[in-house]
């Protein structure tokens, strides 16, 4: 290849005095920027740095934005109340592109470059699974808010925790009795063809079987799919309930096409809110969902019996009664999941205080202190509800909400109990070396 146009000829551009001055000014500006403030105080008052692995871009971007908002609100609340062990908390955010490879790099970057105390905040299960080994190698505690079963399966490592949101296996187990009793006995499952979907694929059939119902068909859909009608003929005609859980930007299309396919003559629908997070339930084409039911981690719409803690949490994060950003009704939140960021940060606070955490040299102590936790009471720190924590499998257990779509809102019709979602531990992280 010849370089006729001098395209790659760097000698053409000479550095002028003006450019040099501009560069100098930019550098000066950077050092003045807030991130570069040097803490001249003693080590003890330097901030605790929490590396936030955020899905800023990629298919998880809508979640990432709300995870950041919620975490920022929680950090502000924690700092306003005196921080952790008297030290302020600071979030260091890196984008993982909702990509497992990037995720592992980001964890490494937090551990070696930013030297954060912990890593926190990942949602998408494939990113968690991809990043967990990096957390183990760097021996940095990794607090995820993912709802997948991978943490509780004890297939990851001792540094990975999920103390702020329940896992899919527990969610399914606690809701199966309601589905079998109220929706129908013959269930067809539609789920995304990757880790998170496989949790649904693997745990729903046994959970329903225990209730005398059965899964008659399982339809896996690639997470990047943009058109769904072609999958619907696989739904058996005798289906009484379609159990759907979809993720990614095309979820709205999925529901609309299901509506066009069935019209008003549809089977019962039971969905995971993941299918509609960050999406207005009153979007055109979603009338079809009227009367159907959804799992919600934390209710999107303000409920009549909301606790004072729930109201305070909603106000702090900045969401209105419809679960949208205050001042922008079109900016719908990911309410079913993002509460987990708030609660996880308070678990981190509790564990760091229990461990007398001072800095990265105390990371092992932090792991042990987290494992020693057993219970989180409902309150301002845990607005979604009370939880128990199993230190052996690094997973919390809590209540689930089943909500009905009616009048353009989601109203909670059933709340499960913590005991409904408990299961036998599949292993024990505490036997692994630190």
């Amino acid at each position, binding site marked *: *290849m010849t370089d*006729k*146009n001098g*395209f790659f000829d760097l000698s053409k551009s000479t550095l002028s005095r003006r450019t040099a001055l501009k560069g100098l000014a930019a550098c000066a500006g950077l050092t003045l920027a807030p991130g570069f403030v040097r803490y001249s105080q003693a080590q003890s008052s330097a901030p605790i740095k929490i590396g936030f692995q955020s899905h*800023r*871009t*990629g*298919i998880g*971007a*809508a979640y*990432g*934005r709300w995870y950041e908002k919620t975490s920022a609100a929680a950090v502000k609340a924690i700092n306003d109340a005196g921080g952790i062990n008297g030290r302020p908390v600071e979030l260091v955010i890196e984008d993982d592109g909702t990509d497992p490879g990037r995720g592992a790099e980001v964890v490494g970057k937090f551990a070696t470059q930013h030297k954060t105390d912990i890593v926190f905040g990942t949602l998408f299960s494939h990113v968690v699974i991809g990043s967990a080994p990096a957390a183990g190698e760097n021996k940095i505690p990794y607090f995820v808010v993912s709802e997948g079963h991978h943490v509780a399966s004890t297939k990851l490592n001792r540094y990975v925790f999920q103390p702020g949101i329940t896992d899919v296996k527990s969610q399914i187990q606690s809701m199966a009795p309601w589905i079998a009793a109220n929706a129908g006995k013959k269930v067809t499952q539609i789920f995304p063809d990757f880790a998170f979907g496989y949790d649904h694929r693997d745990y729903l059939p046994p959970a329903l079987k225990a209730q005398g119902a059965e899964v008659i068909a399982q339809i896996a859909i*690639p997470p*990047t*799919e*943009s*058109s769904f*009608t*072609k999958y*619907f*003929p696989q739904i058996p*005609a005798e289906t009484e309930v379609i159990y759907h859980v979809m993720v990614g*930007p*095309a*979820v*709205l*299309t999925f529901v*609309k*096409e299901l509506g*066009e*396919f*069935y*019209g008003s003559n549809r089977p019962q629908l039971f969905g995971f809110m993941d299918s509609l997070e*960050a*999406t207005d339930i009153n*979007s*055109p*084409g979603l009338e079809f969902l009227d009367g159907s039911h959804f799992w919600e981690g934390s209710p999107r719409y303000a409920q009549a019996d909301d606790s004072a803690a729930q109201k305070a949490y909603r106000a702090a994060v900045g969401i209105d009664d419809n679960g949208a950003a205050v001042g922008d009704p079109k900016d719908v939140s990911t309410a079913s999941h993002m509460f987990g960021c708030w609660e996880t940060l308070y678990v981190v606070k509790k564990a760091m205080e229990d461990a007398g955490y001072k800095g990265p040299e105390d990371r092992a102590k932090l792991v042990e202190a987290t494992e020693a936790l057993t219970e989180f009471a409902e309150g301002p720190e845990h607005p979604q509800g009370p939880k128990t924590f199993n230190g052996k499998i690094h997973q919390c257990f809590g209540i689930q909400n089943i909500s009905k779509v009616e009048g353009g809102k989601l109203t909670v019709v059933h709340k499960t109990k913590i005991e409904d979602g408990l299961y036998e531990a599949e292993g024990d992280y505490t036997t692994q070396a630190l």
Partner: protein
Amino acid sequence: MHFGPHLLLAALEGLVTSAVLALTALGLSLVFGVMRVVNVAHGEFFMLGAVLAWAISTAIPGHPTVGFLAALVLAPLIVGAIALLAERLVLRRLNYNPEATIVATIGMLYIIQQLALSFYGPEARPVEPPFSYRILLPWFGYSGYKLSIIAASALLLVATWLVLTRTKIGLIMRATQYDSETAQAFGIPVDRVYAGVFALGAMLAAIAAVLIVPISQAHYLMGQDPLLLSFIVVIIGGLGSLRGTVVAAVLIGLSDGIISVFFSPTLAKIIATLLVAMVLVFRPQGLFGTASR
């Protein structure tokens, strides 16, 4: 579901895919045919069309049809203007050098994508279809709007074909494609033809996006699949051949629809890619392409 209706559904789905694909791929094919520029940012013009359709249709109050029709006219024009600007500011300055333009359009891809993320956001946003008539077949329901996409696309393809073969502009474009140096010697403003073709290519992608957005939603990453499929179509059909592009789009769309309904979508992608490999091995100029001079 029985075989007959099942096949009907598959064919309908395939035809909708084909219709959108044909328009998008035609834009890519024109740009390559006339300018010899491989436009990697083509999918982003598609995405811009969809995003603008959302912006325009939400900005215009009243019946969704009004907003949609406004988007159908305005969004391609705006995208065309952006493409024109990109052509003037970037491609022309690289003298349409094939290697440099590939790198430059990759850069454009990222710039447009990240600008969309910054100003439009990460959400998938819906656009209301101009009408929502649901055709009730004995076995299943089907969106009337989807059928109208097929018709609209066919009309646009015929119109493009008429412009290319029956008008002076088309003649000038074909002359430039055939031999740009000779065309210039005969007083054809090749430079302006290039600008126009690049804008037209982007506009075709934008129109396709406006048509598809009521059934699929605008999202800042939506340009990737159309780009890949357009390349597949253009390679199979033959670069710069209008007829080849349309035939290949129908072929790929239908096979994608039918194979994914009866087997799996992954198999459909595998077969499409295999087809590309076979075409490249046995007929490198594509099914309808002419051997390069």
